[in-house]
């Protein structure tokens, strides 16, 4: 089968571009640990509200300007739905659902998680600039899905 010279050049260009993209993503993954959130931890969705730590959701200080936030996604609300932290705070979010699938997305950050009943999802973010961040459910969860949101106040 004959492959035209120009097509060889075009295909080489295309495939090299893809390899470079993969190289960038792979390098970031290995050297900086930048990988998609892939936490693997199960939890009984029917007992979430009585299972620690989600029986007492909220913000915990664990170090110098370092926090853990346990947030329960329960249709159609996040609990707690307001948290306040100082600028520069490093926050690790843990979230799970007691009912259907939800989303956990903080706008203007890379915190973007699927919240699946039976599983705990987690992501860490450093909030450098002060202001109000919007936490919203970005997966359809029911008729009042658009009321499911919260705010993160960075002082």
């Amino acid at each position, binding site marked *: *089968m004959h492959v035209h010279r120009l097509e060889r050049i075009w295909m080489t260009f295309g495939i090299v571009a893809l390899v470079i993209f993969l190289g960038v993503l792979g390098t970031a993954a290995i050297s900086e640990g930048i990988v998609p959130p892939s936490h693997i931890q199960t939890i009984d969705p029917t007992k979430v509200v009585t299972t620690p730590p989600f029986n007492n959701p909220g913000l915990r200080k664990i170090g110098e300007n370092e926090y853990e936030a346990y947030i329960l996604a329960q249709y159609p609300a996040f609990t707690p739905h307001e948290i306040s932290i100082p600028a520069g705070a490093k926050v690790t979010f843990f979230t799970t659902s007691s009912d259907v699938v939800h989303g956990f997305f903080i706008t203007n950050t890379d915190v973007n998680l699927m919240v699946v009943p039976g*599983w705990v999802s987690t992501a860490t973010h450093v909030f450098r600039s002060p202001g109000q961040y919007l936490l919203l459910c970005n997966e359809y969860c029911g008729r009042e899905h658009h009321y499911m949101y919260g705010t993160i106040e960075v002082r």
Partner: protein
Amino acid sequence: MAMTHVERENQLPLAYVYTATGALVIGAVFGLLQSYSRAKAFTAPAWFDYYRMLTAHGVLMAIVFTTFFICGLALFMVYRAVPRERSLRLGWSGYVLMLFGTLLATWAILSGNASVLYTFYAPLKAHPAFYIGATILVVATWFVLAEVLENVAYFRRTQPGARLPLVVHGVTCTFVMWFIATLGVAAEMLIYLIPWSLNWVPTVNVMMTRMLFWYFGHPLVYFWIMGAYLIWYNVVPVFYGGKVFSDGLTRLAFLLLLILSTPVGIHHEFMEPGISAGWKWVHTMTTYGVVIPSIMTAFAIFASFEMSARAKGQPGFIGVIRSLPWGNPAFSGAALGMLLFIFGGAGGVVNASYSIDALVHNTMWIVGHFHVTVGGPVALTFVGAAYWLVPALTGRKLWAPKLALAQTWAWFIGMLVMSTGMHWAGILGSPRRTDDVTYFGVAAAHAWMPEMIAAAVGGTILFISILMFVMVAIGTRFSSEVNDQPVAFAESEPESAPPPAAFDRIYAWGAAAIVLAVLAYIGPIHELVSLHPYGAPGERTW
């Protein structure tokens, strides 16, 4: 007057194409209302809320319109490329069952019993009629597959040693790929969702249903694209008197799509728990792999344009553009669709890019992306192709070709405006699948409104385009002028070195596709099973 066998045969693809058109029109009404709702220009009534419309829009557009059109197109292509007196029993059985499944699922949606969107993510628990109807719709397409394969067998039996016609080769790859993909959703429905929706089992394994859905969900996208590629490679060159750039490379592109479309689905699940980052990386690489046949296609399409222009003595970029039949709405639909695919393809690479997906996952960016892919290159190619297909099937000349031409441009402009607004809104953080994105006036949400208004303007132009399409369709139905254009499919120049014989062994490639799919999923499924995840009981939250 008795119908000839060709006239009788034509009724089947026509039934598919008309049903697809019906789904497109109903889906478009909901689409328009959704874009107005997000722009705060319309509030859905309580008795027919936004999410019910969104489910209907998604199912009717993404599943019903596309599947019916591709089935009709495939049968037409195979019937014309392999002419014979044939029994239509298999094809009509498929059509009747698909229609029945569609009506059942549509009833469940419109009556408010299945506001679960077109991805029907468990544990949102819809009425069993929705799952059963959707399963019948999908599984009944196997009748069309059987019809295609029966004709391939007939061709090989009656013309031993002859190469399968190029168009039949492409159709066969498309439907073998589709069969492998639909096994995933059939398993999801039959093993998990249907027994659970009937309350035979108390809970459902949520992550397993999601993995099986996306095992099907991404090859579904490639099923649409292969439908458009069938037209781009085999039909569009006929409009400008051109040739297929390369017979062998066309066959190879379809074979690569057959083997690489399935082992990629986890790139839809990058943001999910329960799947380790390593498996997500494997699916990132395979997703990049399936870009390769599209890069080949981009070259082949433009090379075919250029070869034809040179043959007409019009070299150079401007010469090529000027030599193309822009007055033919079937050409302009496909060509404008190709232009939109440049944006769609580039955006797709962003979405597939592993960690970068965190910036766009489940935002309006994704909605912009699939409107500039399935709603652009695919749907606009199909709508344009209908201007060639329906006259060929009915023998009636296309009514008001200028209106049809304007329709394709309106679609192109509307889609550019709408998808640009959607993409930008997504970059700013606006979520998809959400009725009201004002969040009680939270400041972060203010920036999205101009983009939502742009999307509504684009949606309006698109809706007008669809009304124009309906006018042309109705006009053509009652047109008394006779269409006497013969149907032909494009061929390549005779090649000095013919493509390898292995390119005709489609079933061997199908077996390789199954092996790749198993390799890509056995690890993540084993990981899920070994963790003994808890079942979720499910709820009706609408």
